[in-house]
């Protein structure tokens, strides 16, 4: 145990850093996807509603590990071999970010759509009746109220995304689980290695969910 910490501690911490980086990158792009597809899901336009729904259904209907392999191996194969004439690859970080962004983006779409729908329709109508545009009403009246209801689910989604990064060890991105596999292979100390990795996740996630609670309370008090 002590040997793992002294010899491999730095390596595992760096890997934790990469895990966090991947989660943050994924979450950032997921938010953009979520806002775009979420709003497409609530506007009065059947075609946009359907596009938003298809995005959510497709991503939710495919396991993330399959999505990861598809993006990392499948898409370059499509360009390089099936279509031919391209030499095109993703780095593991790029593929991992795309994969997380799509996966988490589908859930963010649902969170944002539900958040907007939870705001009483009368708020939008009152704003529009004063002459405000749809965009102004959304920004100044509806979204601020929607975001307040979304915060707990949003933080929850961040935690899920952080855990999901471990799936991306399969495409060789040296995040925490991938790195820990190497440590185990070198030391044969399975119990100790995975106990340490588990505790590392536990600490980071606990800190996250605690600060989420504090943030939530502050927002409720401050209105």
């Amino acid at each position, binding site marked *: 145990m002590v040997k793992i910490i002294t010899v491999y501690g730095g390596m595992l911490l760096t890997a934790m850093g990469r895990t966090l980086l991947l989660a943050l990158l994924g979450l950032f792009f997921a938010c953009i996807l979520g806002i775009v597809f979420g709003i497409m899901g609530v506007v009065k336009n059947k075609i946009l509603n359907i596009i938003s729904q298809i995005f959510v259904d497709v991503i939710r209907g495919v396991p993330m590990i399959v999505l990861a392999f598809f993006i990392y191996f499948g898409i370059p194969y499509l360009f390089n071999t099936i279509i031919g004439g391209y030499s095109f690859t993703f780095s593991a970080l790029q593929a991992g970010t795309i994969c997380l962004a799509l996966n988490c983006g589908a859930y963010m779409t649902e969170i944002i759509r539900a958040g907007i729908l939870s705001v*009483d329709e*009368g*708020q939008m*109508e*009152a*704003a*529009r*009746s*004063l*002459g*405000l*545009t749809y965009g*102004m009403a959304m920004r*100044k*009246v509806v979204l*601020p*109220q929607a975001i*307040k209801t979304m915060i707990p689910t949003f933080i929850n989604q961040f935690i899920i995304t952080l855990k999901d990064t471990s799936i991306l060890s399969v495409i060789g991105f040296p995040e925490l689980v991938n790195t820990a596999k190497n440590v185990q292979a070198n030391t044969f100390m399975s119990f100790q290695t995975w106990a340490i990795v588990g505790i590392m996740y536990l600490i980071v996630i606990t800190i996250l969910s605690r600060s989420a609670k504090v943030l939530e309370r502050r927002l409720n008090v401050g*209105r």
Partner: protein
Amino acid sequence: MADNREIKVSVKNLKKDFGDLQVLKDINTDIYKGEVVCIIGPSGSGKSTFLRCLNKLEEVSGGQVIIDGHDIVDKNTNINKVRENIGMVFQHFNLFNNLNIMDNLTLAPVQLKKCSKEEAVERGQNMLKKVGLEDKAGNYPNQLSGGQKQRVAIARALCMQPDIMLFDEPTSALDPEMVGEVLQVMKDLANEGMTMVIVTHEMGFAREVADRVIFMDGGFIVEEGTPQEVLLNPKAQRTIDFLNKVL
């Protein structure tokens, strides 16, 4: 009706359906500057839908709605510009819950660049005074009573300095003891010469304040005229039946 008066709202052959349900069948009427029109009728007769067609909160299915010469059914008309001149007061107030009372009043004038922030606040204070709530500027909607919320909603609409005010059952969601304070604000507004279209079940108010009463049923205007005519000497059997039920 003297015909030299200015027409503010002209409705011709207005039709509205929700899918297979025909809610407004053929509505024709003109509303004059300074006129106070009360719309009465049984629940589900299309009163709210009619009112919401006047500022295009509902997409119209047929006919014309002309506000100050602008046909709002026409896709080329900038509906937001037309709405700036039409205030609307809702049954459930619909104050912006994320904003305090002053911000509720100033949001639209400032966003739409009607005036500077300072002017908007000053106007907001005047409007709050007018509805008797000058001490509530810093409160949030959930800290007010229903009657106070509705008075703020009226003040919010007035801050855009509209020519026309629409009211959809403004007192129906209020406890009885708060109805009077809201009706008083509306009476003051009527006395100042505001053009008003009011869907209401307050027959006493309609009799006292309305220039004209419209009785709607089944998506049609069944009968219209002075309060004296419609409320005291109704001609149509459906009006008589309705008034017998509510009075």
